[in-house]
């Protein structure tokens, strides 16, 4: 058959075993039920039937006849005594926590380590080759079933099948047999698997037997027909054995079988150690022998068929497998192979587990105790168990490869049985003989083992050809009585019986002899008694007189009621009876024992004694009808029976009673002390419970923290294997749960393989015992992405400073790292930007510096808080006359209260100031203030423009504008002056003419007077004078001359006033700050401008009576008023045109506490709304070209708002007129004066 198929089937079968063992341990599913079934115990005992049974029985039958059955009948005989012996062993096992046959023997004989070591050594020597034999069976059967297929290409599988099986069995044994340290704990999984293997091998063998017997041979009748039996080789099969020694060999095999079923280490393990309840022994006592019958029932038919089929008897061991193969039934062959495989592996695994326990506990541990340097190894017992299993299985395989087909290995089955037989005297003696001592057991064991070695194993080695076998015939050094197979000249017994005889004789003999010669130690004696008491406990009680329920309660009730009714009413009597029955727990029973009746009787007697006295009660109730003599004798016998069962005489009983009374007193005292202790213990327990509760709460809290922490928490072994992780750790690494993480990738190193160097650094640091903090490393996420985590880990060291575990916290810093990268990139970009900006700033700075130096303005930077000068440009030095250092030191007159620093609170533009220079001179400046940050300090940049030239120009412009205004007024003024001049001239001419006429008249009167005086004729003169007077029209003159004079004077005054107004309007002193009479100024302006408005408008002056006077500049104010009035006149003229109609102008003044309000209104054409915002702009005019320059209102605005800190407002409506309202403060601030 193709090795691949076989291999695959083996893998499936092993997987099936794993499943059975696993589910049995978990107690789930069908396997769980199977494991709990009592039959598992019986089936597990069938580990006795190894491949030696499966294959070897047929071989043995073919070569030696029916003697092979003795190996199975012997155990059946021994099983008859199991309820006595095995049950005791199980009880002893439970009490002493026995772990193996070595432990059992050692425990009985003073817990001797030497004895346990010897037993272990014997078991090891006897069993290792037996394990090798099983491996040989596996390999041979595999080789047989595969080579017949001719699939030579699969030799690799054939060659490596053995090691593969060893590895699998090692793994299985460790997993299900040595996963925990307590070897006394039952291995449900392992036992369930072994039981299942027993089922498989039985099924396989029965299937093969039925196939051979019924399908190939035609049934039992055919097999045992002469056709088959007449074959020459068949005669051997149906006989008990050869020659005279047949019965001896048979008996020897019976003895060996009896011993093996009890004391083979693996049998002891499954029968005793794995026994969960002594009750399981009872069904096993018939089930297991039945199993052995079934597995042997087809041995003879198969052997007979194989011989008749012509297969050589030398190959009879393979009949079971080779017959199906030779008949082409490969599936049957495969089933047989699996059966044989199951038979071998079951034995190997149990034997390895048991032997490992024995070797570690009884050889290694004592060695560790003796050799101090190895004392530390005791802490690694579990690992030593594993090493033991590996060593035993590897050793078995090695033995198989080395010994192969040797005589020693082929016969190792019975040789092993003979070795185990050496345990029998000591082990059975442990159960049955209290006087058996350690010395006796040790002497018997060592001697028996030595004789076994000398008479059986050594000859087997010699026959295998490993050394010269001549000593077998001649004896060592030619001493014939020492021939190993004929010791002391015994020539009658076959080799096996010979060895069994001598080894058992010396073993048993020395055990008894030495035990009798040497007294037991106290410890041994105590344990022996304990073993024996357990023995008595193990006895199932037989029915005795004390338990024989032969007394009928109904009969006794009749008799007792009869007596009691003599003293009580019937109801009371019945109550007493029932009460007594209840007290004795006998209610409901029909028959009771004599002992129970005696106590029931005594109870009633006590009740009756309370009423009639004890003597009367005794007499009444001891009547023959109630308690007949026969029953009293029965009672005596029952007590005697109890005494005899106690195995004491009455004297001894009395002594014992006294002893027990004293003991009771002592126990009472002790019990009181114990009660006290119990109270203390209870208090202690309470305290511990509270502490435990607190601990649990703390644990819950820590568990909560552990489970809910955002950081990953982990614990690993020193090599990085994950031991514990919290959910956060699993989440960080991309797994659903900690279990998934630990199952799928249990090694933290795997996660850290992205950067092996950094990973090694991490572990290297921990190995040196140092903590690792904030160790950033890349790890691999479950989805393959690379993460950054930060690790904080600490090493956990053992006493020797060796790293045992690693605990740590992991934080996912991928986002932070990403942010850092971004920040880094941003920082680099920023640096680049800064570099560029710096260059740009430097460039700008240079540019600004050059600009500052090049600009024709002083720039001063002052701190906002302290107004200290921080910097200034060279123009400042030139402008103010201070050098930079002086300015920055605020030296000289350049102080903080300088006008320059007034109103620095906010940005201000184009404010004009007059500043004082260092040389005492003043300069008009235009100041701009800008809040800035200079050198990181809040500051003001004060920019001063020297406006001296502009001011001069402005003055010139003002003067020009004033002159223009005056020029405009000149014609009017001339006209105004001309008119009075004209009529002054006319009047003067009139007066001159009148004066001449009057002088002529005066002359006539003078001549008349002279003539009169002279006496001359005066008539003529009078006539002349009269004619002159008449000519003169003196009355007219008298009327007109005064009028002319008055009118002339008025004209002179008018001219004088115009001239005076002009003089005041244009006088330079008018530009200085002084007090200004607003009403007067308005009147003068109206007078000057009269010629402009008198033809087009009527002027109404409505001036404040208070006659407001303000601080101001008269000249500029007059200019403002003049502009307003001329503009008003022009507006009216534009409206009225040449219609001859006149408009209306009104000038009105009012005042309050702080200011004077001047209103100049006209009813002119008005200003369009879209132009009203621009009327104060320089060079803006609505007048025709050549009529206005656009400077008038601009200058007026400047004069009012800047020079006088007043306001000027305008309201206008097209076609209806315009009103200018000027508000001037009464007083200007003193600073303004500077």
């Amino acid at each position, binding site marked *: 058959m193709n090795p691949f198929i076989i291999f695959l089937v083996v893998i499936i079968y092993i997987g099936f075993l794993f499943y059975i063992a696993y589910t049995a341990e978990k107690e789930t599913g069908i396997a769980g039920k199977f494991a709990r079934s009592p039959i598992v115990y019986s089936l597990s005992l069938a580990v006795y039937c190894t491949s030696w049974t499966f294959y070897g029985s047929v071989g043995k039958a073919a070569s030696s006849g029916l003697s092979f059955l003795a190996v199975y009948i012997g155990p059946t005989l021994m099983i008859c005594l199991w309820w006595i012996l095995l049950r005791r062993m199980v009880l002893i096992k439970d009490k002493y926590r026995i772990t193996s046959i070595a432990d059992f023997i050692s425990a009985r004989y003073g817990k001797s380590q030497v004895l346990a070591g010897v037993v272990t050594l014997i078991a090891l020597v006897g069993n290792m080759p037996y394990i090798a034999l099983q491996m040989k069976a596996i390999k041979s059967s595999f080789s047989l079933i595969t080579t017949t297929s001719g699939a030579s290409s699969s030799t690799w599988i054939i060659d490596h099948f053995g090691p593969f099986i060893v590895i699998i069995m090692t793994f299985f044994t460790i997993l299900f047999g040595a996963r925990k340290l307590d070897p006394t704990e039952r291995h449900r999984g392992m036992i369930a698997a072994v039981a299942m293997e027993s089922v498989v091998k039985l099924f396989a063998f029965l299937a093969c037997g039925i196939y051979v017997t019924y399908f190939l041979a035609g049934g039992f009748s055919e097999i*045992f027909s002469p056709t088959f039996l007449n074959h020459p080789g068949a005669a051997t099969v149906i006989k008990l054995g050869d020659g005279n020694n047949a019965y001896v060999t048979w008996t020897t095999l019976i003895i060996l079988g009896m011993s093996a079923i009890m004391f083979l280490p693996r049998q002891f393990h499954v029968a005793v150690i794995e026994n969960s309840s002594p009750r399981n022994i009872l069904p096993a006592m018939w089930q297991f022998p039945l199993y052995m019958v079934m597995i042997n029932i087809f041995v*003879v038919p198969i052997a007979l068929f194989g011989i008749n089929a012509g297969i050589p008897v030398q190959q009879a061991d393979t009949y079971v497998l080779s017959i199906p193969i030779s008949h082409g039934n490969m599936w049957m062959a495969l089933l047989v192979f699996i059966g044989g495989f199951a038979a071998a592996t079951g034995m190997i695994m149990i034997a390895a587990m048991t032997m490992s326990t024995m070797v570690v506990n009884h050889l290694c541990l004592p060695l560790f105790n003796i050799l101090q340097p190895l004392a530390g190894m005791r802490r690694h017992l579990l690992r030593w168990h594993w090493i033991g299993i590996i060593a035993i299985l590897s050793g078995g395989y090695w033995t198989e490869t080395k010994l192969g087909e040797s005589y020693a290995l082929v016969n190792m089955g019975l040789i092993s049985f003979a070795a185990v037989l050496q345990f029998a005297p000591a082990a059975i003696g442990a159960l049955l003989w209290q006087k058996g001592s350690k010395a006796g057991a040790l002497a018997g064991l060592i001697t028996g083992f030595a004789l076994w070695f000398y008479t059986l194993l050594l000859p087997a080695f010699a026959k295998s050809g490993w050394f010269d076998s001549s000593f077998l015939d001649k004896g060592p050094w030619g001493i014939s009585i020492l021939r190993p197979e004929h010791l002391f000249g015994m020539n009658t017994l076959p080799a096996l019986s010979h060895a069994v005889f001598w080894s058992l004789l010396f073993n048993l003999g020395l055990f008894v002899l030495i035990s009798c010669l040497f007294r037991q130690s106290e410890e041994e004696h105590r344990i022996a008694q304990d073993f024996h008491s357990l023995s008595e406990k193990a006895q199932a009680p037989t029915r005795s007189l004390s338990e024989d329920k032969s007394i009928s309660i109904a009969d006794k009730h009749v008799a007792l009621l009869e007596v009691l009714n003599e003293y009580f009413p019937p109801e009371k009597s019945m109550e007493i009876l029932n009460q007594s029955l209840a007290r004795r727990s006998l209610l409901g029973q029909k028959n009771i024992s004599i002992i129970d009746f005696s106590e029931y009787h005594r109870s009633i007697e006590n009740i009756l004694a309370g009423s009639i006295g004890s003597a009367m009660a005794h007499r009444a109730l001891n009547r023959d009808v109630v308690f007949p003599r026969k029953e009293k004798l029965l009672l005596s016998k029952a007590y005697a029976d109890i005494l005899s069962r106690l195995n004491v005489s009455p004297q001894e009983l009395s002594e014992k009673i006294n002893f027990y009374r004293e003991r009771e007193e002592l126990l009472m005292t002790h019990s009181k002390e114990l009660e006290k202790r119990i109270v203390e213990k209870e208090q202690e327990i309470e305290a511990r419970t509270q502490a435990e509760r607190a601990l649990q709460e703390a644990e819950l809290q820590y568990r909560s923290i552990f489970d809910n922490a955002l950081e990953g928490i982990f614990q690993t072994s020193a090599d990085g294997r994950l031991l514990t992780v919290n959910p956060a750790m699993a989440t960080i690494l991309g797994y659903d749960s900690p279990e998934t993480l630990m199952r799928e990738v249990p090694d933290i190193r795997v996660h850290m393989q992205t950067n092996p160097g950094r990973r090694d650094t991490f572990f290297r640091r921990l190995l040196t015992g140092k903590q690792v903090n904030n160790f950033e490393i890349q790890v691999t996420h479950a989805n393959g992405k690379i993460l950054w985590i930060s690790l904080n880990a600490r090493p956990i060291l053992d006493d020797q400073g060796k790293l045992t575990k690693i605990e740590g916290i992991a934080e996912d810093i991928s986002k932070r790292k990403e942010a850092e990268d971004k920040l880094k990139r941003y920082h680099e970009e920023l640096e680049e930007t800064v570099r560029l900006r710096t260059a740009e700033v430097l460039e700008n700075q240079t540019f600004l510096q050059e600009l500052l130096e090049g600009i024709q303005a002083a720039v001063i930077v002052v701190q906002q808080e302290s107004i200290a000068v921080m910097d200034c440009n060279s123009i400042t030095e030139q402008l103010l006359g201070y050098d930079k250092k002086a300015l920055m030191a605020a030296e000289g007159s350049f102080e903080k209260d300088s006008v320059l620093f007034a109103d620095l609170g906010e940005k201000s533009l184009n404010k004009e100031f007059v500043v004082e220079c260092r040389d005492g001179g003043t300069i008009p400046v235009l100041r701009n203030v800008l809040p800035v940050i200079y050198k990181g300090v809040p500051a003001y940049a004060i920019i001063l423009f020297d406006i001296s030239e502009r001011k001069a120009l402005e003055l010139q412009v003002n003067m020009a504008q004033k002159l223009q205004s005056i020029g405009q007024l000149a014609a009017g003024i001339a006209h105004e002056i001309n008119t009075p001049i004209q009529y002054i001239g006319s009047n003067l001419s009139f007066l001159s003419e009148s004066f001449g006429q009057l002088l002529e008249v005066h002359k006539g009167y003078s001549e008349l007077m002279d003539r009169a005086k002279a006496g001359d004729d005066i008539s003529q003169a009078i006539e002349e004078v009269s004619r002159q007077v008449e000519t003169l029209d003196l009355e007219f003159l008298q009327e007109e001359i005064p009028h002319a004079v008055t009118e002339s004077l008025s004209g002179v005054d008018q001219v004088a006033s115009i001239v005076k107004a002009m003089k005041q309007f244009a006088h330079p002193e008018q530009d200085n700050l002084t007090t200004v009479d607003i009403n007067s100024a308005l009147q003068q302006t109206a007078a000057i401008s009269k010629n402009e408005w008198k033809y087009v408008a009527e002027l109404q002056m409505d001036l404040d009576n208070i006659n407001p006077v303000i601080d101001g500049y008269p000249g500029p104010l007059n200019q403002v008023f003049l502009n307003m009035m001329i503009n008003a006149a022009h507006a009216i003229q534009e409206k009225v045109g040449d219609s001859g109609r006149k408009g209306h102008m009104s000038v009105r003044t009012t005042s309050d506490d702080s200011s004077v309000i001047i209103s100049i209104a006209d009813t002119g054409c008005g200003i369009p709304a879209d132009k009203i915002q621009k009327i104060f702009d320089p060079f803006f005019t609505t007048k025709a070209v050549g009529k206005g320059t656009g400077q008038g209102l601009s200058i007026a605005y400047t004069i009012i708002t800047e020079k006088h800190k007043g306001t000027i407002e305008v309201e206008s409506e097209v076609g209806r007129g315009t009103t200018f309202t000027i508000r001037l403060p009464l007083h200007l601030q003193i600073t303004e004066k500077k």
Partner: protein
Amino acid sequence: MEKISNTWKGKPAALFLFLACFFLFSWPLLSIPSESGGIVLISYLFLLWLLVILGLCHYCRNEAGNLTEIQRDEDHS
């Protein structure tokens, strides 16, 4: 030896079965079917073996019935 005998007290059936089997499966009784050999010997061995198993089965059932409650409790514990 008295102690040993105590061990067997109450166990006559088991002891009897063991001794009977031992004799039945040993010389000289075994020599009777062995002389005939063949099917007789095989039948003797297997039938006797099955009878022993039947005897054991009967014995075990009795013993199971004889277990006291205390022993049962002990066993269960």
